[in-house]
């Protein structure tokens, strides 16, 4: 613990309508968790749809899952977990006032996000190339699809990975903003709530991928 360099100037970070730093910190944290609930419900509703249709058309979903390359999904899972680790570490480093290292950790996190997106990009373009478009645009002749409604599987695939990818991009944007502020010296052992907030968001993105990976690539 290196909380010894506290000075009272830090309380200048407390907004006017809060009494003290504790109240502000607790409020901020609660707000973030509330927002995460909306994320869970949003993704969860698609998962509910996925679950229902998977149950109705197991063979079709199995055919769809076989078209995906689990190795890419596997690599992406590892990349995201590693980025989650660096994100968590960055907060801990800021709490210990090791700002430079924290900035490094944040930069690595952004890099991991970028790697994830690049792999995703190649996955998607490959699928397009093969004719696996979503829904009714799926090229039945080119893909030799056995099930007439295979497009629905890819509908789910693109919706889920697309929405997730969008979150990765938003997360990368937010972390870039954090990185700039970290380098500028805005964060320290008495003020890190934005880092923690974005961190929780980033972990949620990771968490969702942890479920998407077996759901889309492995189960069939």
């Amino acid at each position, binding site marked *: 613990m290196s*909380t010894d360099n506290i000075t009272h100037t830090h309380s200048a970070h407390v907004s006017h309508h809060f009494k003290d730093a*504790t109240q502000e910190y607790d409020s901020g*944290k609660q707000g973030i968790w509330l927002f995460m609930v909306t994320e869970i419900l949003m993704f969860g*509703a698609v998962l*509910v749809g996925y679950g*229902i249709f998977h149950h109705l058309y197991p063979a079709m979903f199995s055919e769809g899952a076989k078209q995906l390359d689990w190795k890419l999904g596997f690599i992406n899972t590892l990349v995201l977990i590693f980025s989650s*680790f660096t994100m968590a570490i960055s907060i801990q480093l800021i709490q210990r006032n090791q700002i430079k290292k924290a900035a490094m950790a944040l930069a690595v996190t952004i890099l991991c996000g970028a790697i994830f997106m690049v792999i995703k990009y190649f996955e998607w373009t490959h699928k397009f190339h093969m004719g696996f478009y979503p829904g009714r645009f799926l090229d039945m002749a080119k893909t030799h699809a056995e099930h007439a409604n295979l497009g629905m599987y890819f509908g789910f695939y693109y919706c889920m990975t697309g929405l997730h990818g969008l979150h990765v991009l938003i997360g990368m944007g937010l972390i870039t903003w954090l990185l700039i502020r970290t380098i500028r010296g805005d964060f320290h052992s*008495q003020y890190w709530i934005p880092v923690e907030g974005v961190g929780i968001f980033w*972990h949620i993105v990771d968490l969702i991928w942890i479920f998407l990976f077996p759901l889309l690539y*492995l189960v069939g």
Partner: protein
Amino acid sequence: MAANNHKHDPNVLHPHISPTSMYLKVAAALFGLTILTVVAHQFHHQLGAFASLVAFGIAAVKATLVLLYFMHLKDDNNMNRAIFASGFFFLIVLLLFSVVDIATRVTEVSPL
């Protein structure tokens, strides 16, 4: 963490700082579990119906690790835990009632 500690000035935060070793251990566990998922998948023909159960069981364990250690729910207050749990609760409600409808659609008789 940061619970109102009357001995201290509330204007000074005393975060609960987890050691780096803890993060490393959790990350290693997550990596290991991911590999385990893939290994289990190689035997999905033998596992049959259990294949998806195993895959989601492992995913659930991974998710719990992330929640407890990376997102610090382990050290957080009950309110935030309840808030987060409520999301899953209402998700289950959505699933349950939709399934009740879809699974009992019979045109001939009202079963109840």
